């Protein structure tokens, strides 16, 4: 099979989630049919991309039959019968149910790690339960870099996921399994998590939409913590309307997460005269001003990324946007600040994996004690990258280095946030910007193995994404173009907005999409 026909077979189009849900709600199709179709696609496409760690065909079909019964009984659900994939750092427990019905999904939550290889959670993540409550059907749990630490999905303990557009290349990471499951159109919608770009970068590599919501929009209850002040759950989808629907479904204030904001479900739809996020998204913005930082044109960008950035700027100008040059000088310090803060929080969060309360427990030699049990269980259970970040975090938090590294990074974090605040507020040299545009990654998907031996090189891939997490802002990757040479790989651009203003990002994305289709 030639390259193009093989890639086409792996990414062949499917109906959008909102179309599936409309058909199921109107009883023109059944949830069992949409689920069966997804399981058929899984059977034909999964072996080439390895996106999933676990699949639930029986539970999914049982669940679909229950959804069909609820529709027959007169209910209408925003994601009725929509097959979805869930990143394997979101827990699914035996309690996953709608009133009176148990589907028996259960299953493991591994975080891509040997230390949680056989871990079964007693409860379900709030974001997953909200998808279920909206009528979605879970097809399976997706592969990821271990504990979400990585940008390529090569750091999973279990398998390497492949890019659906070219299987010799990575899908990105850490939500690479979710991105590949959507990019291959096995499912139209998936959940990922984003600590430093883990939704937006794989969305770019796989040619789909991916939203990292404002910190506090989506409950982190049931998301296995990597860096708690940065982590956020978000949707990934082939279709922008599907992304908007999923965003509205999962964003809610949750008493189980103290950092879930009281504004989590606040959308200001009235201004657009709409009753839902997807309707409000259709309303274009007049007087749109987009800031493009000088740093987005880094000389280290792949030339195709800079070309696609320029193409996107030209598209925005054609639809009447004012594109203004701005400066985000702290971009050059983002990676350093991020890897200090994230590693510090990771070293604390991952201290819970000790071989005692859950996860893998090492066998001991005679005479060995409790500390040996901790050390052996963790050394056997954690992969190299996770061990590296735990040690880095322990070092920057240790006596004597705390001020020099951790506190310095927290001060830099404030300056990074102020950079964005200034751009959204406007200055004497430029108007207030509705959003900032920059690439989602400095290059397209790289080859499997190309960067796995140099940790710093892989960290530098996150240059355009980490600032958004440090500042707590929303970031949306939109599919924007392709590499010029073979293999043809997708390239995404990123829109960054004010806190709690995802709607503006969705409206801009809709304007860009509409300009490309007319």
């Amino acid at each position: 099979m030639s390259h193009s026909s093989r890639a086409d077979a792996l990414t062949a189009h499917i109906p959008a989630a909102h179309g599936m849900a409309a058909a199921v709600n109107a009883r023109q199709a059944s949830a069992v049919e949409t689920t069966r179709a997804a399981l058929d696609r899984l059977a034909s496409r999964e072996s080439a991309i390895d996106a999933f760690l676990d699949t639930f065909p029986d539970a999914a079909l049982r669940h679909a039959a229950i959804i069909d019964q609820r529709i027959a009984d007169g209910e209408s659900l925003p994601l009725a019968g929509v097959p979805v994939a869930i990143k394997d750092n979101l827990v699914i427990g035996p309690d996953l149910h709608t009133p009176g019905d148990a589907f028996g999904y259960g299953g493991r939550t591994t975080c891509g790690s040997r230390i949680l290889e056989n871990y079964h959670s007693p409860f379900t993540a709030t974001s997953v339960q909200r998808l279920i409550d909206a009528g979605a059907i879970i097809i399976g749990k997706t592969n990821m870099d271990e504990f979400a630490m990585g940008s390529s999905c090569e750091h999973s303990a279990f398998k390497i996921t492949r890019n659906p557009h070219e299987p010799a290349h990575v899908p990105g990471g850490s939500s690479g399994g979710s991105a590949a499951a959507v990019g291959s159109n096995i499912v139209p919608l998936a959940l990922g998590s984003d600590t430093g770009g883990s939704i937006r970068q794989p969305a770019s590599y796989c040619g789909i939409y991916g939203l990292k919501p404002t910190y506090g929009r989506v409950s982190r209850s049931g998301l296995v913590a990597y860096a708690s002040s940065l982590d956020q759950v978000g949707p990934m989808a082939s279709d922008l309307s599907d992304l908007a629907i999923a965003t509205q479904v999962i964003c809610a204030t949750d008493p189980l997460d103290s950092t879930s904001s009281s504004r989590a479900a606040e959308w200001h739809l009235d201004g657009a005269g709409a009753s839902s996020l997807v309707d409000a998204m259709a309303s274009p913005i007049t007087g749109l001003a987009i800031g493009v930082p000088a740093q987005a044109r880094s000389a280290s960008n792949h030339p195709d990324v800079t070309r696609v950035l320029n193409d996107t700027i030209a598209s925005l100008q054609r639809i009447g946007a004012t594109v203004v040059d701005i400066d985000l000088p702290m971009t050059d310090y983002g990676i350093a600040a991020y890897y200090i803060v994230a590693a510090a929080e990771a070293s604390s969060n991952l201290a819970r994996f000790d071989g005692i309360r859950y996860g893998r427990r090492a066998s001991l030699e005679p005479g060995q004690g409790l500390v040996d049990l901790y050390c052996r269980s963790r050394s056997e259970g954690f992969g190299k990258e996770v061990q590296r970040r735990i040690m880095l975090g322990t070092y920057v938090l240790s006596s004597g280095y705390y001020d020099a590294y951790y506190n310095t990074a927290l001060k830099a974090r404030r300056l990074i946030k102020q950079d964005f605040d200034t751009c959204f507020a406007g200055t004497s040299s430029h108007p207030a910007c509705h959003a900032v545009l920059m690439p989602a990654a400095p290059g397209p998907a790289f080859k499997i193995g190309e960067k796995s031996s140099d940790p710093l090189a892989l960290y530098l891939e996150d240059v355009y994404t980490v600032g958004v997490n440090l500042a707590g802002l929303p970031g949306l990757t939109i599919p924007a173009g392709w590499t010029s040479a073979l293999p043809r790989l997708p390239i995404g651009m990123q829109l960054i907005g004010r806190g709690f203003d995802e709607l503006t990002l969705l409206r801009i994305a809709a304007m860009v999409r509409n300009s490309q289709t007319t």
Partner: protein
Amino acid sequence: MSAHFSSRPDPISLDEVRKVASLSRLALNDAQLQTAQHDLAAVLDYMTRLQSLDLKNVQLLTSIAGENARLNADTPGPTLTNDQLLAMAPDTMPPFIKVPKVMGEGSA
């Protein structure tokens, strides 16, 4: 340990890596310690770029949730049961989690 990371020719010594591994509760052999030293040195060296920033009058940004963070009412709520917690543990003697001896000669 030095109080500042400026002008250090060797960002992290092998002894410091050994100490950090111990604090991290990781058991590394000599080859792994040397690899860790090489990798951590490269990353820590990269991080020295932060010292070029003027941070004298900058406050720490300790929480991004800020005013949006909420406190729950101080009342008991539903919790996981003893059985649910034990089901997650790798080695148990209900209603307890089993651990090796803490003092003296321990065994699994």
